[in-house]
């Protein structure tokens, strides 16, 4: 993707001109001066809507100066060197209390603390109040206060989008946040220039107009439901985006057990000036089926005072490391990349308490800290790892023309360019999130001599493995996968340095991994891909300030050796058995057919997509016809909760690699066909599976507790945006979700509904 720094000047200029030309097309399209149809007619786009492979335009065209893809000029470093800035910790958010307020037959939730004055959170969307208002629309108190058009809440109306189980999970903790322009001073390294307000759109606390990086850290705990109010404060004018990013969003909580209306991927994006309330219930899966009397102490959350709050559900399905990001259909890649990666969210439970000292027979005492009852992060560190790129002015850059994959050339950890992090010589837990748009990773740790440093693998996609797994190198890590590891630095001394090394090369086109490098090879770097090699340096020191108790200093004397009270038990959880399923399903992710995302009559997508957008990626269910994404089409229907299914994903083949994400539920990885399956996956619960080129995976899953419309898709977000995504519908036993959810079609003036098509091959109700 990026041309070598060894390339000639004329070659560099050529690549820069190609990028300038693409940027000019983006600008012309964004202000309506030219359409994709024009570009096709003029030979700039292919008939399928892809950028033609033309030198001076496409990054992949051959040129007179080189036989390899043209590539894009490197991001200027402005003199920045690796490991010269401190790694920022995520911005910890403090919740406010929510109190019940009775309003007729409804009970609303009032924000306390710093968010007093926010409209109360309601079970039903304010869209209902907006629509019911009689009088001068200009005086409608429920209208969008910025544009004066449409409702102030983006959540669709009707009982279908009311918060499910509102009384079961009445919110106790409140968060208010805004997706908005970045503030002055946001940069990836002190040497690099400030990002312009519309280069990065990130998250700020409260209803604010400016925000900063890194993303938030939210500490959730079982038994404390959260209400997250998300304001969209991006520019009203869609053209003010510095070339990429759509000012519409739906925030997905990946992969918590929430109602569909709060999953963030029901097709209900919302517009500038509006907010959307998400009920992050902290419900434990199988609460309607297992441990319904909440008698199992392992199914619990910390009470804040050394005790536990028992909750119904299966303790084997406790979740830990999760995150939240935009899911605006057809624009997810550019929005998430632009900064709509709101937060990492750690769920704390009785066993996974985030307290390494408290010994009550339930707490696993994993490395974390001891000052707080739960959620200590002194020795429990979130790492958001991504690859970014900037243009020649140092502004954040994204190539909206790629349909294969987007690779950056700046390794970022918590959005800082190749930083360092100081550690004490003791055990640490790291929660590693692969957050690039298309890049796969393979991480190892190397000491100063280039030798591998062993570590223990304890959780995959936020799910504890039954037994810790000793490793010297992680498996490939695809987009959105989370790996939790424990590293014991006690073998090192102050002054030692250990580096986190990426060993996986990617194909130039971003379509998937190329090859694994040895640690020695990786440490030498790759002149064509600066994201290969060391990207984070751990510096062993003798003292660090506490994050959990800022007045305290953590030292070797008080936190290491015998005072490192953390444990990595030999057993972390119990295995959920594989059983005979009620049904089996087959889903193929490939590249066939002509794309049927658009309505054949109106030519519009549901929801709206760019005019002329191509749809090269497609999905088949049970060997039937291929389809590209249409939110008004249900591809899989789960007729009732609690039924165990075995689902097989097959890669359509042909040289692609897809990390496939199932929303809402985790699956237990059963096999990869005739292929090998690593210990970190075998019988492990996951929500993202790399299909690998020509690969397959079968997992066991059961759906429950909630109903509604969710999705399943490739998390190479570029593939996802170009329609490698499908909707599945979960029917419930009670409430409106006993029926199929009408499809929301958001507009700035409100939400319209349509009745979805249901693929017969995905609907078991049709079988005899």
């Amino acid at each position: 993707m990026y041309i070598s720094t060894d390339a000639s000047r004329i070659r560099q200029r050529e690549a820069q001109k190609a990028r300038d030309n693409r940027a000019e097309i983006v600008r012309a399209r964004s202000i309506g001066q030219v359409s994709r149809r024009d570009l096709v007619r003029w030979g700039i786009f292919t008939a399928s809507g892809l950028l033609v492979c033309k030198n001076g335009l496409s990054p992949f065209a051959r040129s007179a100066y080189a036989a390899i893809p043209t590539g894009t000029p490197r991001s200027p470093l402005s003199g920045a060197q690796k490991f010269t800035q401190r790694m920022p910790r995520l911005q910890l958010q403090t919740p406010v209390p929510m109190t019940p307020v009775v309003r007729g037959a409804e009970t609303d939730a009032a924000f306390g603390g710093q968010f007093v004055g926010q409209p109360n959170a309601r079970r039903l969307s304010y869209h209902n109040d907006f629509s019911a208002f009689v009088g001068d629309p200009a005086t409608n108190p429920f209208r969008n206060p910025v544009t004066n058009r449409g409702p102030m809440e983006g959540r669709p109306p009707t009982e279908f989008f009311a918060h499910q189980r509102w009384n079961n999970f009445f919110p106790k903790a409140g968060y208010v946040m805004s997706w908005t322009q970045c503030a002055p001073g946001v940069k990836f390294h002190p040497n690099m220039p400030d990002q312009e307000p519309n280069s990065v759109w990130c998250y700020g606390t409260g209803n604010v107009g400016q925000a900063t990086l890194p993303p938030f850290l939210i500490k959730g705990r079982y038994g404390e439901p959260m209400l997250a109010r998300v304001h969209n404060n991006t520019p009203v004018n869609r053209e003010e985006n510095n070339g990429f990013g759509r000012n519409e969003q739906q925030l997905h909580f990946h992969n918590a057990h929430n109602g569909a209306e709060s999953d963030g991927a029901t097709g209900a994006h919302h517009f500038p000036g509006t907010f959307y309330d998400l009920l992050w219930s902290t419900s434990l899966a199988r609460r309607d089926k297992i441990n319904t009397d909440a008698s199992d102490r392992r199914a619990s959350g910390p009470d804040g005072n050394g005790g536990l709050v028992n909750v119904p559900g299966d303790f084997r399905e406790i979740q830990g490391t999760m995150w939240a990001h935009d899911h605006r259909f057809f624009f997810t890649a550019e929005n998430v990349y632009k900064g709509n990666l709101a937060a990492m969210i750690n769920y704390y439970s009785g066993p996974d308490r985030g307290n390494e000292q408290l010994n009550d027979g339930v707490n696993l005492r994993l490395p974390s800290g001891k000052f707080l009852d739960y959620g200590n992060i002194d020795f429990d560190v979130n790492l958001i790892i991504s690859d970014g790129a900037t243009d020649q002015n140092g502004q954040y850059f994204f190539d909206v023309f790629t349909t294969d994959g987007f690779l950056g050339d700046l390794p970022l950890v918590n959005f800082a360019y190749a930083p360092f992090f100081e550690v004490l010589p003791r055990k640490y837990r790291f929660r590693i999130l692969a957050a690039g748009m298309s890049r796969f990773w393979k991480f190892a740790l190397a000491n100063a001599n280039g030798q591998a440093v062993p570590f223990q693998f304890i959780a995959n996609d936020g799910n504890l493995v039954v037994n810790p797994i000793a490793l010297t190198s992680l498996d490939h890590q695809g987009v959105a996968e989370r790996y939790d590891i424990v590293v014991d630095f006690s073998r090192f001394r102050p002054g030692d340095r250990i580096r986190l090394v990426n060993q996986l090369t990617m194909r130039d086109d971003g379509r998937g991994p190329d090859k694994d490098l040895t640690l020695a090879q990786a440490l030498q770097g790759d002149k064509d891909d600066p994201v290969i090699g060391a990207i984070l340096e751990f510096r062993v020191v003798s003292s660090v300030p506490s994050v959990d108790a800022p007045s305290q200093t953590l030292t070797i004397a008080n936190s290491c050796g015998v005072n490192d009270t953390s444990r990595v038990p030999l057993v972390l959880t119990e295995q959920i058995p594989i059983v005979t399923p009620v049904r089996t399903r087959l889903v193929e992710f490939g590249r066939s057919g002509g794309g049927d995302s658009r309505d054949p009559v109106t030519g519009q997508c549901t929801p709206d997509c760019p005019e002329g957008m191509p749809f090269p990626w497609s999905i088949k269910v049970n060997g039937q016809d291929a389809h590209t994404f249409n939110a008004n089409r249900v591809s899989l229907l789960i007729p009732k909760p609690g039924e165990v299914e075995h689902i097989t994903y097959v890669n359509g083949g042909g040289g692609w690699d897809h990390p496939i994400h199932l929303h809402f539920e985790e699956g237990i990885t059963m096999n990869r066909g005739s292929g090998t399956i690593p210990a970190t996956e075998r019988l492990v619960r996951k929500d993202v599976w790399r299909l690998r080129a020509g690969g397959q995976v079968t997992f066991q899953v059961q759906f429950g507790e909630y109903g509604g419309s969710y999705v399943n898709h490739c998390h190479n977000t570029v593939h996802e945006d170009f329609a490698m995504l499908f909707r599945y519908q979960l029917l419930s036993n009670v409430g409106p979700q006993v029926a199929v959810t009408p499809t929301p079609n958001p507009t700035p003036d409100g939400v319209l509904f349509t009745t979805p098509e249901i693929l017969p091959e995905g609907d078991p109700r049709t079988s005899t």
Partner: protein
Amino acid sequence: MRQVHTLLKRAVATGALLAAAYAVASVSSAQDATTSTTTTTPTTSTVKVKVPPTTATPKMIADAVARSKARHDKFLATGTPEQFGSEEPYTPK
């Protein structure tokens, strides 16, 4: 390059005329929408064209794997990934 620039200049020059025609449809259809909020009554009606298998059989999975393997082998042999729409047709042997 010159050709590209010429095309772009032409695009910009004609942009004022094109904008009126395309702005609503292509760039800001949602922003320019003037319809008032309406909601339809949710229904459970479905569109069913045929009744294909709703459970995957071992043979169905084996066929899918065979298709995948054939395409993967082709990729390994040629080094060229499948292109848009080129997956089909494929008949398992």
